[in-house]
């Protein structure tokens, strides 16, 4: 463990430091221009990602500080994220009272998260984004909104994490933990050579099925007809999913939010582009 652990601990301290800053009540909304980043990050490369070895070792307390359960509980497995190399005492992870149930995969600048948060105040919502500075933007945005709406206690149920969801979804979420997954305006990767980078594929859909509970919904939206077809084809082909009928789809309040509130959706609106929506329900696993 030695060296690597110490390094990871340093990382974690930085994280905690940032988390502390966040709580100091900065209430000015961040400005996007300071957070721009190259449009694409290769999901196959290693990056410098922070992720727990397993969901049990994830410390959610800095993301959702208002949900921390007072009494820190003993961890069965030591959580390297919270330990220091000198810390020989039993390791503790601050527990939160709820599990994240809604994930926005590739959340970008966070418009969907912010719009969803007040509509489901008792549900923890997490945005996952691979680009660092975009993630920082969303972090600061949430921080500011929480400060601005302190009395109304708004936005305490929403958080963001930097993660490569194509590789590390099962590190954050246990089997069946999620009830909704949003995949909004994913990168289209037009070239056939780049199709492997698409965030929807039959093999990846097995992972979405794993973290979603039966009855849970995957929401997809895109302005690229080709990509829409691709996503429909790949979810339709996957035995763990069925398409949600249009009537039910249009009755789902999340769909309206997804159409109008994401940054990408607004851009499409300005350009008078089309938006293609498709929802898929997680089915029960078949009998053996």
């Amino acid at each position, binding site marked *: *463990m*030695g*060296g*690597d652990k110490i*390094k*990871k601990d*340093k*990382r974690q301290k930085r994280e905690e430091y940032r988390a502390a800053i966040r709580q100091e009540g900065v209430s000015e909304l961040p400005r996007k221009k300071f957070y721009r980043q190259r449009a694409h990050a*290769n*999901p*196959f*490369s*290693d*990056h*410098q990602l922070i992720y727990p*070895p*397993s*969901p049990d070792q994830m410390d959610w307390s800095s993301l959702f500080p208002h949900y921390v359960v007072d009494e820190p509980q003993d961890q069965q*497995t030591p959580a*390297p994220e919270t330990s220091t190399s000198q810390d020989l005492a039993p390791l503790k992870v601050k527990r939160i009272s709820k599990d994240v149930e809604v994930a926005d995969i590739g959340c970008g600048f966070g418009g969907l998260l912010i719009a969803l948060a007040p509509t489901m105040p008792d549900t923890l919502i997490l945005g996952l984004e691979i680009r660092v500075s975009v993630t920082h933007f969303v972090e600061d945005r949430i921080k500011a909104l929480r400060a601005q709406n302190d009395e109304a206690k708004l936005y305490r149920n929403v958080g963001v994490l930097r993660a490569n969801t*194509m*590789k*590390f979804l*099962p*590190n954050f979420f246990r*089997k069946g933990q999620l009830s909704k997954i949003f995949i909004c305006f994913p990168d289209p990767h037009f070239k*056939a*050579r*780049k*199709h*492997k980078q*698409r965030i929807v*594929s*039959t*093999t*990846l*859909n*097995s*992972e979405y*099925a*794993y973290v979603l509970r039966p009855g849970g919904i995957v929401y997809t939206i895109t302005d690229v007809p080709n990509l829409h077809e*691709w996503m429909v*084809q*790949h979810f339709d*082909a*996957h*035995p*763990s999913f069925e398409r949600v009928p249009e009537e039910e789809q249009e009755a789902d309040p999340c769909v309206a939010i997804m159409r109008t509130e994401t940054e990408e959706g607004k851009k499409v609106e300005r350009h008078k582009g089309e938006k293609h929506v498709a929802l898929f329900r997680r089915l029960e*696993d*078949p009998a*053996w």
Partner: protein
Amino acid sequence: MTLPYHLVKVCGSIVFAAQGGDIHSFSSALQHISTWKYPAVQQADESKAPSAETEESPAPEGPPAKRRKVENGKDSVSNGQPKSKKNAQAMPKRPCALALTSDNNTILSADKFGDVYALPLLPTTTTTTTGSESAPSPLPSQPQSRSATPSTPTTTTTPAAGQTPPLFKSQANELTVHTKRNLRALENQKISLGRRALAEQLGANRPQFESTLLLGHVSMLTAICVGTVSVAGGKPREYILTADRDEHIRVSRAAPQAHVIEGFCLGHEEFVSRLCVAPGGKAEVLISGGGDDDLFVWDWVKGEVLGRAAVLEHVKGVAGQEEASKVAVTRVFACTWEGRTGVFVVVERVPALFHYDFLEDNTLQHRETIPLPANPLDVDLVEAAVAAPRLLVAVDTATSTSTEGRGSSLIALEKGEAGWRQSRVEDLPAGGDITMSTTELQKILYSTESLRKLSDFD
């Protein structure tokens, strides 16, 4: 230089050992029986083998197609093309790890792009699809990899060129012993040397190559195995266990439900490189090793870690390795004798075999470190009609420090009263000579440590 034996596989009373592109068979008394040579392995190609790799970068950034295009300018592909004209050949993605399903009918091939394909062990001779009739047969040019459906099998068949018989069938016929496991050994050895040769073989004699995409990680796969658990009053359940470079061990149902992920065994903090389901009625226990300091013991059905066993600590104990700060586990081999289970572990570039006892309470306890005269590359148990276990170890003689360590690269280890008695297998067939630099060869033989991620922090 002479290539070392790098794989040993015991199939009943026959021992197979691979040396470069050759597979030698031996009796369990370790008497040489026969040698099978990989058809297309030629000296000229071998010397270029490492550089002929088309995809060496660890970051899989490949084409979506199931088959990669290989620019091949060699005229040994007798297709009448002028030598100067580059000729694009199709080849399947290189497997990283293989397993057989429990019915011995299907090869599971895990590749560096994270996908697992099922291939019939003995391919049919027709080019039409297998699997579900309803699934349309995709055009060969159509990108299928990630778009293929796991459970409604989209089967891709490489078109046959001419009347060449299927590759795997003809190879099986070459072997004196006609077991299915020897084909696996054959497959295994294709992974290392003679890859260029394989590319040519596949290009020239396009076998009928049916494959079905079963599941996929986005991370590079490193190990695959099949687990079976019995169900009271029901059929046994079969699972596919896959490990990747990003520390995951995934447990999926076997085909035709391979799209269902049952769970993960999570806890490794470095790459996982080896999986081993415990023998001796402990089919729900998995031992895994990789770049972490410890081996992990899991109840893989529940996805729970049962314990750990130190490896680095014992590596440090090996003379000359005091400075060892990390390990790369390359073999975890378990076997039972006289009612007890022994687990033997090989660590890359460490001249010893680490022997653990796997106890009734599912703990792994280091029993002894067996020093070897050179780096071990593989190990298997020779099933002889003797009470004491006899192991066969392939070693890389080039790494031996003493002259005594040179010579035969197969060592038999026999458990005696006073520990393990080592004896060289002297009756080795001639061959395995190759023109390749030691460095090149070492790069091929010791590739596991390179799975470690370099991008740690600060």
